[in-house]
């Protein structure tokens, strides 16, 4: 255990050194991140000057949902950089070999190497947005809610990790450079809004097939105290675990099949 903690510390130090050397890049990336998040908020704010509610969600609740969505997503993005390039860099170009020869779990290496601090900004801004909009709603918030938030957001992050890792492992079987990641990424955006706006088929897919709804509107609705959502939201940790299990199975199967990048 001590070994792993030391390792994580070493990776973190290297990362910070690298970031400090290119601090202007870091600031620029941060700025872009802020702007990107702002544009989503602008959409909600502007639209709600014209309509009072969206399928029973008022403006403050929509903003709360938006804030909630950011948290598990940012947690996931903080470690996901190498998932995007998995097919291209690690399989086709063979960097996976470098990782496999080291005496540390390959998934941990991928995660640590791909760590991006600026992506975690989303956690902070998400929490702030939830706090502000929650206060405006007069939302009751105590230890139970905080614990629920922690449980739901970590589970939500696990849903993302599970689904995206599973998709990334397709690279073990195909030679595709980018794979289906962009498709999943864009479909992911559907979870930014209440799942009730979609038709039945999409609702089913978003809840039980590609369970992004469990990383977005379902837990958020529960935290907002909307009727009947808490029971459904309690499934979130199970969904997260199931997602992780799927990824683990896919990874193990893929790795078994993997026989190096060539001579």
């Amino acid at each position, binding site marked *: 255990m001590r070994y792993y903690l030391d390792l994580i510390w070493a990776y973190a130090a290297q990362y910070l050194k690298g970031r400090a050397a290119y601090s202007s*890049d870091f600031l620029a990336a941060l700025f872009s991140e802020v*702007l990107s998040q702002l*544009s989503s908020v602008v959409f909600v704010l502007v*639209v709600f000057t*014209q309509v009072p509610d*969206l399928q029973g969600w008022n403006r403050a609740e929509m903003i709360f949902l938006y804030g909630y969505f950011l948290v598990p997503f940012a947690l996931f993005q903080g470690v996901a950089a190498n998932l995007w390039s998995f097919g291209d860099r690690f399989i086709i170009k063979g960097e996976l070999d470098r990782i496999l020869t080291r005496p540390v779990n390959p998934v941990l290496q991928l995660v640590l190497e791909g760590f991006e601090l600026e992506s975690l900004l989303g956690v902070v801004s998400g929490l702030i947005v939830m706090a502000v909009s929650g206060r405006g709603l007069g939302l009751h918030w105590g230890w139970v809610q905080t614990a629920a938030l922690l449980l739901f957001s970590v589970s939500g992050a696990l849903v993302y990790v599970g689904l995206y890792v599973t998709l990334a492992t397709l690279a073990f079987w195909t030679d595709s450079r980018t794979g289906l990641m962009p498709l999943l990424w864009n479909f992911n955006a559907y979870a930014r809004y209440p799942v009730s706006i979609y038709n039945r088929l999409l609702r089913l897919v978003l809840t039980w097939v590609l369970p992004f709804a469990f990383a977005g509107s379902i837990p958020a609705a529960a935290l907002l105290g909307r009727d009947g959502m808490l029971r459904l939201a309690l499934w979130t940790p199970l969904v997260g675990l199931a997602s992780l299990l799927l990824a683990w199975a896919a990874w193990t199967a893929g790795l078994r099949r993997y026989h190096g990048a060539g001579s």
Partner: protein
Amino acid sequence: MGLDLSLWPAYLEMARVRFLTWLAYRVNYYSGILVYTINIGAYYFLWQAIYHGRTTLGGLTAAQMTSYVTIGWLARAFYFNGLDREIADEIRDGTVAVQLIRPYNYLLGKSIGALGEAAFRLLFFTVPGLGLALLLFPVRLPGNAHSWGLFGLATVMSFLLNTQINIVTGLLAFFMLNNTGLIQAKRILIDLLSGVFLPLSFYPIWAFRILRWLPFQGISYVPNLAFSGALTGRGFWQAFAQQAGWVLALAVLITWMWRQARLRLVVQGG
């Protein structure tokens, strides 16, 4: 190295090469089309829910909004290019100096290349994407040739404006040390201010008034409205004139920037 128009065969070749490069790049355009369709879908359902029970919002009916959103993303698939990053990179790593030795105009060459890329994007992203969208969503195409014509004109302007703004952003690399962050930020800003995310008429009046004067609305808002039939007749021609005005103004700006940039390059030597 001015504008030697007798070199037009060379420029034509540049467009052709660019088109073929994209073709050979094995860009996964099936996934590209699906990505745009998924994007459109998200906004379609969102706007359906927003419009629930209301006939018009921001000057558009629900049906017009569906057309707006659909063409917004598909047109963006067409006019988008990476000229901002390309020019900035070539300035930063110095290859722009090599380009200046060549007998053709650097910026014109880049723009024509962008045109070649746009031709590819039109054929492989926009048109198939529109076909798919027609199958999945209740999109209404412009009713007659006249409307298509207006939309076509507005789109030509839209492409010019977007390319010019990209060139301006790229050229800023001559004057700033590191503008990679700026490029990403600029892309997001343009999406916000040009009407891709949502029609500019939704913004508060004070913001809308300012945005009407800026070139960005000509990139997405004007063509989208023309497509969805919400901008016709005198209103259209006024907007078109404004687009054209900005194309001219930006051309002047670019000429001036380019002159300044070349002076700088000569001075820094090496």
